[in-house]
């Protein structure tokens, strides 16, 4: 921390103002030269300039030179959002020997030039007012110190798909204590259900088993299955998470599991097979379970008593749920996706018997061991793939219905041609037709597309306005399509199986989203702070997102994302103390009337009522939990609660300057 130079009372403010062009982002609308010129007349402004990019290294050095040569003691930058560059210019102040909080970053891009592109004069006037307000604030600003807080060197990873597994493995290898929780009884997520993956050809379950195997050898990893987050509190470095662990019931080894599974009278659709087949209430998952014993689905178990009679002490139906409290420094949310499930009748789904989704088809391929591919007891000789099912959707006029997935699901073109190559290799006599919109086999995946076409698969492009129709005829599915390559005639393809290339949709995680206030983007996936600058972070410091919970990705991209989140988590987890912003609320107990309004208003639970000796009950702010939002300040009837660095007089000064 730089030495605080501005603590002499009465020292006159000497302010430097730097108005940024942002390479046209601002200067195309706001007359930056005019703003800079006008500010020269402001009291206490020693220098006012306009610069192509405030943030460029040369400009930063220029500011440092000015601070030194002109004895500036306050810095005002009029540029982009503070989210982007506030820290940059605090760093400039610091490098020049000033207190970092004597730098103020006014946002004249997002708040003036961008929204008022149609009104340059108005935008210029507004930018000038913002700058004056910033100057008014800086005039009376006082040096501040960052708060510090102790940090727990452990990380919670939510979701044990390959993203969570990869994050956990990387963090564990760095020596960080990791807790990995998974709501299902088994690990690996959707990847365990995939057959030969691209581009390596490795089976999905092999990828999962390899990661799980490496992870379980780490001494500093604790894995909880059947586990969900029940509550959370705290803040970066000091989150406290209560994890609910549902009973496992199967507690020990037995030689009679197969008998017990056979005896179980319950039959429910097997989610691992995407409902293609059924399973019992007691079953052996095909993905890794820890310990490696069958599991009981208590939601469907009828407690008929058959398995305890066969398995004896290996099952314990008296087992109860447990709640654990974990203390962690940061959290990675890697909760994955749901596959799109078409509504009844979409491209014949649920209406025409020979229609399956891509994940169902992948399970069919993974479980078909014979020399020919059969479906519903019949040999499959021809296949149709219909692309973009549940992706790149458009809301029809007047359609107020369910969610529309406007985004492209990214992995599905690649996954489909990859599956087609596997089909061709194993069942070369199958004829395959691909009905697609744009073939998005980006990068090296293009080679798979080329290969599929070379070996005889037929690619027919359809238009979004004229999608294929799927009907049934003589036990076949009939795919009718109009396409330019067919000279716009309507051509019907009779096929044995139709594969709907379904994409990924955001998982319905309402409880978790509410618990952590996770930010959701317009596409329904978790939204990062900034795609390029802070790609795995949320607005809650220390709460990170990764994998397909953020957007559809293929296996390689998912693993990269898991590792990237681990890298970010490590920047918290390798430290014992963290710096926090000093702009937090505090209470003047001599004025506080204990109205309790602030308690009710605080969205972070940072305020408590304390009994003070001699004066009675007064509000008290936990500064580590306070985010400085100011909600409490607004409701305090006596102005007893104030934000450090943003007191009511300071805010009034700013407003007055804005209104001038």
């Amino acid at each position, binding site marked *: 921390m730089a030495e605080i130079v501005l603590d002499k009372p009465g020292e006159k403010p000497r302010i430097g103002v730097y108005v940024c062009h942002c390479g046209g982002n601002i200067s195309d609308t706001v007359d930056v030269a005019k703003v800079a010129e006008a500010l020269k007349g402001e009291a206490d402004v020693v220098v006012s300039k306009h610069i*192509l990019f405030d943030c460029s*290294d040369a400009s930063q050095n220029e500011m440092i030179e000015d601070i030194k040569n002109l004895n500036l003691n306050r810095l005002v930058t009029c540029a*982009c959002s503070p989210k982007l560059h506030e820290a940059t210019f605090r760093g400039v102040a610091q490098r020049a020997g000033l207190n970092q909080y004597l730098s103020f970053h006014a946002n004249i891009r997002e708040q003036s030039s961008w929204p008022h592109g149609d009104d340059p004069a108005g935008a210029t006037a507004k930018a000038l007012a913002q700058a004056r307000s910033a100057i008014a604030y800086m005039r009376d600003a006082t040096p501040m110190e960052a708060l510090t807080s102790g940090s727990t060197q452990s990380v919670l990873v939510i979701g044990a798909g390959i993203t969570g597994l990869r994050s956990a493995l990387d963090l564990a290898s760095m020596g960080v204590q990791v807790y990995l929780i998974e709501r299902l009884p088994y690990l690996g997520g959707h990847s365990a259900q995939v057959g030969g993956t691209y581009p390596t050809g490795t089976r999905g379950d092999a990828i999962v088993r390899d990661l799980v195997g490496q992870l379980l050898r780490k001494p500093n990893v604790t894995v909880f299955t059947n586990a969900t987050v029940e509550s959370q509190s705290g803040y970066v470095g000091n989150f406290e998470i209560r994890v609910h662990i549902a009973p496992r019931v199967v507690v020990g080894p037995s030689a009679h599991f197969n008998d017990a599974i056979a005896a179980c009278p319950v039959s429910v659709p097997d989610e691992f097979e995407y409902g293609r087949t059924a399973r019992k209430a007691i079953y052996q998952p095909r993905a890794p379970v820890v310990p490696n014993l069958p599991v009981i689905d208590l939601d469907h178990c009828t407690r008929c008593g058959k398995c305890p009679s066969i398995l004896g002490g290996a099952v314990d139906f008296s087992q109860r749920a447990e709640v654990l409290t974990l203390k962690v420094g940061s959290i990675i949310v890697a909760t994955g996706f749901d596959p799109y499930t078409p509504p009844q009748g979409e491209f014949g789904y649920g209406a025409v018997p020979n229609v399956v989704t891509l994940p169902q088809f992948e399970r069919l391929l993974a479980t078909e061991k014979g020399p020919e591919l059969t479906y519903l007891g019949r040999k499959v000789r021809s296949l149709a793939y219909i692309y973009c099912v549940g992706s790149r959707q458009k809301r029809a006029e007047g359609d107020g219905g369910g969610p529309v997935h406007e985004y492209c699901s990214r992995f599905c073109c690649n996954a489909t041609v990859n599956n087609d190559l596997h089909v061709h290799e194993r069942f070369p006599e199958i004829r395959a037709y691909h009905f697609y919109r744009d073939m998005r086999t980006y990068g090296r995946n293009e080679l798979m597309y080329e290969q599929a076409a070379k070996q005889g698969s037929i690619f027919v492009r359809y238009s979004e306005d004229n999608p294929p129709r799927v009907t049934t005829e003589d036990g076949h599915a009939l795919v009718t399509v109009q396409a330019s390559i067919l000279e716009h005639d309507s051509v019907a393809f009779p096929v044995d199986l139709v594969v709907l290339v379904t994409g990924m949709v955001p998982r319905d995680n309402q409880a978790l989203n509410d618990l952590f206030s996770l930010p959701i983007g317009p596409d329904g996936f978790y939204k990062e702070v900034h795609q390029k600058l802070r790609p795995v972070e949320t607005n809650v410091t220390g709460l990170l997102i990764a994998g397909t919970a953020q957007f559809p990705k293929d296996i390689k991209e998912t693993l990269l994302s898991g590792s990237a989140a681990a*890298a970010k988590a490590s920047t918290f987890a390798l430290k014992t103390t963290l710096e926090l912003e000093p702009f937090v609320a505090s209470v003047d107990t001599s004025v506080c009337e204990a109205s309790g309004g602030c308690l009710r208003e605080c969205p972070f639970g940072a305020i408590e009522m304390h009994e003070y000796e001699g004066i009675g009950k007064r509000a008290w702010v936990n500064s580590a939990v306070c985010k400085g939002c100011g909600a409490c300040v607004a409701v305090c009837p006596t102005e007893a609660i104030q934000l450090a660095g943003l007191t009511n007089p300071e805010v009034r000064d700013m407003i007055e300057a804005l209104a001038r």
Partner: protein
Amino acid sequence: MTDGTPSSPPPERYDVLVVGAGIAGMEASITLGDAGFKTLLVEREPTIGGKVLLLSKVFPTLDCASCISGTKTSRVSHHPNIDMRTYTEVEAIRREPDGSFLVRLREKPRYVDMATCTGCGDCEKACPIIVPKENDFGLRGRKSIYIPFDTGVPKKAVLDMKNCIYCMACERACPADAIDFLQVEKVREVRVGAVLLSTGFNLFPAEKKTAYHYGEYPNVVTAMQMDRLVGPTRPYNSVMRLSDGKEPANIAYALCTGSRDLTVGNPRCSQVCCMYSMKQAQLLMGILPTADITLYYMDIRAYGKGFEEFYQQTKAMGVKFVRGRVAKIEETSGNDLRVYHEDTEGRGVLVKSDHDLVVLSIGLLPNPGIATIFTNETLELDEMGWIKMRNETQSPSMTSIDGVFVAGCASGPKDIPDSIAEASSAVSQCIAYLTQMRGLAPSGVVPEQTRQESNGEASGLHREVPVEAK
């Protein structure tokens, strides 16, 4: 390492060597530095920032590229744990018996003293020699002594001795006495624990696609040139045709130039061209509101977060999308251009369309030279020359050599978000390698931090009475 001039003191030590200071290399260095690892970042060009710094705005959010890379160039140059070496080539890397790497660096002479040069540009003004400027892809000239890029870091002059006529005008003009004609190449050796390769890509040389006549027809330009024409540090402050300076009114984009094309030896898709072409189309609609813009494409590959929405927005803005690859380009009168393509959505006939400017959406090619610098181990490349990931469906950031990681476009074309994700991923696996495999703790400045001793105990865990039990 026997040849060259061996440095006399014992080789300096770093935790990690990062090769290439583009967006991926900068991101990786900052994350490594933040975690306390002493990092040597080497860049062969005179400034850091790579190709992103040269761009206008970036898809799909249209942030200005400088806002993305400017933060990083600045942080790299002030980071206490990052030692940045520009204009320096990594000449050889040898694995030592103890598992570390011995790295030989060749620092090229700038003929300008970095410590005293203030970047004032007086030398540039004095220099009488003008040659095409690399960073503007030939759109304007530079002097023989020059500041490579307005927003580049470090902002120091460099003298291009190939074109210098030794008139000494720069030496006389320099107010800081920074010009030093006696500088020589320096060879240094350093020892590092791990290597991270972020050597980026080369642009497809558009003249190789002979049917498009790039370099011959003045109004056929590359998309990289167009990005410079619309960028904030743009050379002409307007978009113009190179033949006559006229504002174009009818612009065509030829997508997949140098990609998905066996005739030029690249069967692969370059991943970014659809999106950057649409980005430029949107920017051009703002700059030239009356111009017609047509994109000739095979498939629009808008597959990333927010990309499809960007595509739909581009269509809604009035950009015309024609499905059909450009077969050839012909010059007509007044340097106008005729584009031949197939009408794949209509009757399948050949169509000729006239335009006054054609932008070639050039693809990305590997920058494979890095493989040859490993003297006693083999860095595997794929059949195209991109650095091969050891196991893409397990640990994608690892290369064929233990302790050597890859990030960004060095392993294949990708956009900025993917490059940054790869950089972070490579750092994660690099830190894991250093701490676990080599038992190294960070040797850089770790303010107010101590590393946790891992004893395998669940330090933060305590059990409490199950709530549902009683």
